[in-house]
């Protein structure tokens, strides 16, 4: 479970789009299981990597169940309908994100936090080994930030899901993720366990007065702004 952090314009989202196959890299390859993404078919890529976008059109009128079922697109043929396995995956995704009770509601009628969970459920229904998220906590309150990140680390453990998330909040990244990678000016500056990265001085790239201190409960390093 890797958090991608860095100042605005450091290339986080671009890297995410390259990793998901949306953008072609100018040089090099993104490989999945030894094969370059550019050599895999669209559907094959979609069975390998799922993406939770930062923004899902909040006015969509599809029901939550229909939306999450779209996560099965890479498995369904043009004429075919959802199989029993597809339905199981949809039900499991709804259950994992705790939105089973919202299945019949329209996406547009959900709160921001519920919409974020429905978007995550769609990606989980894809049943991929890798999950990419673009600032998944950005519009969530503290409760939902906590629930979402706990859910991701649980999935990481239970399903061996590879999680990579662009994170704005350094403290959430340090608290919930196994690894942090710091990007600056399109380059990888530092990567490793959160405490090591936070000590390394790579955070200077943010160009802000920062102090690091240990979390009083669990001892993990956290970052505070220092107003001079």
């Amino acid at each position, binding site marked *: 479970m890797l958090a991608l952090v860095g100042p605005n314009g450091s290339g986080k989202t671009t890297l995410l*789009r390259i990793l*998901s*196959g*949306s953008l072609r890299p100018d040089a090099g390859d993104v490989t999945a299981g030894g094969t370059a993404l550019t050599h895999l078919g*669209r*559907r094959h*890529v*979609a*069975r390998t*990597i*799922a*993406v939770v*976008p930062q923004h*899902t*059109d*909040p*006015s*969509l*009128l*599809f*029901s939550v169940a*229909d939306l999450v079922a*779209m*996560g099965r*697109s*890479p498995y*369904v043929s*043009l*004429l075919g309908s959802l199989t029993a396995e597809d339905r199981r995956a949809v039900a499991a995704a709804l259950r994992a994100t705790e939105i089973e009770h919202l299945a019949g509601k*329209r996406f547009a009628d959900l709160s921001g936090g519920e919409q974020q969970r429905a978007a995550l459920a769609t990606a989980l229904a*894809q049943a991929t080994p890798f999950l990419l998220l673009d600032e998944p906590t950005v519009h969530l309150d503290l409760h939902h930030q906590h629930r979402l990140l706990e859910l991701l680390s649980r999935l990481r453990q239970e399903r061996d899901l590879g999680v990579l998330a662009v994170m704005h909040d350094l403290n959430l990244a340090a608290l919930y993720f196994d690894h942090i990678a710091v990007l600056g000016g399109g380059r990888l500056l530092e990567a490793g366990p959160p405490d090591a990265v936070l000590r390394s001085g790579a955070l200077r790239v943010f160009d802000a007065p920062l102090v690091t201190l240990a979390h009083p409960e669990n001892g993990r390093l956290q970052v505070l702004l220092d107003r001079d």
Partner: protein
Amino acid sequence: MAVLRLAPLLAALLAVAAAGILYSSTAIAPAQTLRILLAGVGLYTGHRTWPAADALIIWQLRVPRVAAAALVGGALAVAGALYQAVLRNPLADPYVIGTAAGAQLGMIAALLLPVQVALLGFGTLQVFAFITASLTVLVVYGLARTGGRTPIVTLLLAGFVLSSFLISASTFLMMISNRIEQAMQWTMGSLDVSEMTQLTVVGPVILFLVAGSVLLARPLDVMMLGEEQAGHLGIHVERLKLVAVVVATLLTALAVTLAGIVAFVGLVAPHAIRLIYGPGHRLLLPSSALVGATFVVGADLISRVALAPVPIPLSIVTAVIGAPLFLHLLRRSKRTYSV
């Protein structure tokens, strides 16, 4: 399940079609009309007590007219729904984005050609209409698209400007031609020109395309999440867009060759359906076709009845209903809106 939901729409279409066949300026008693219709399909075996002229009126004028209206309506409605999905723009309609004007220009150009080539009933008319309509779509799309989206304002402006230009070009061509009257009729949106021979060729193609469009339903649904996310879900976005636009443009071109430019059908039908059945294309596409067909058959009936015996151009009737809806959608799209 889906079939059950289509049934009331089909019933409405049949009812309006029956009214369209029964009513006309030449009075033939409804019972007589019914007998003639049944005899025509071999279901009436009694005495044929009607004058031959009556049967001719029913089978050579009224039935083709209603059938053409239904085909035009179904084609334009499905074209509108496809454009709206692919351009991700609720106001995309064959009339608004200029495809219809493009098809018309091609058709008029074909009319003016000294030679008419036809193969299996498909002639220069349809081919020219399709080519110019496709070019129009390409230009409007190219002009309107910015940063992976087709914003409402730029799409409307590009469509408006190009439509105006194409209609001027059509008018110019008509002015210098010697077949101005035939061409005039077309540009007003009229079903007077429909002939049975043309219908038997164009009709099956329209039905085939409308039925085939349902194959695109699932990926079109996913497109509503945005092109990039659709790609993440395994959709071949560019391929899907190409296929959907080609189908929509073909439907538009064929509709225009049958009835000229009929405005706003592609807006009215899909939006009415979204209100009732929601945004899913598996239901949206076939039910839009039925509603569009009902709308145009009904509008044609109104155009014949309203100021009888003087017929009003069909497009005026559809515009009276479609234009307010268009303005309403435009107003709503200033806030948040997605199809």
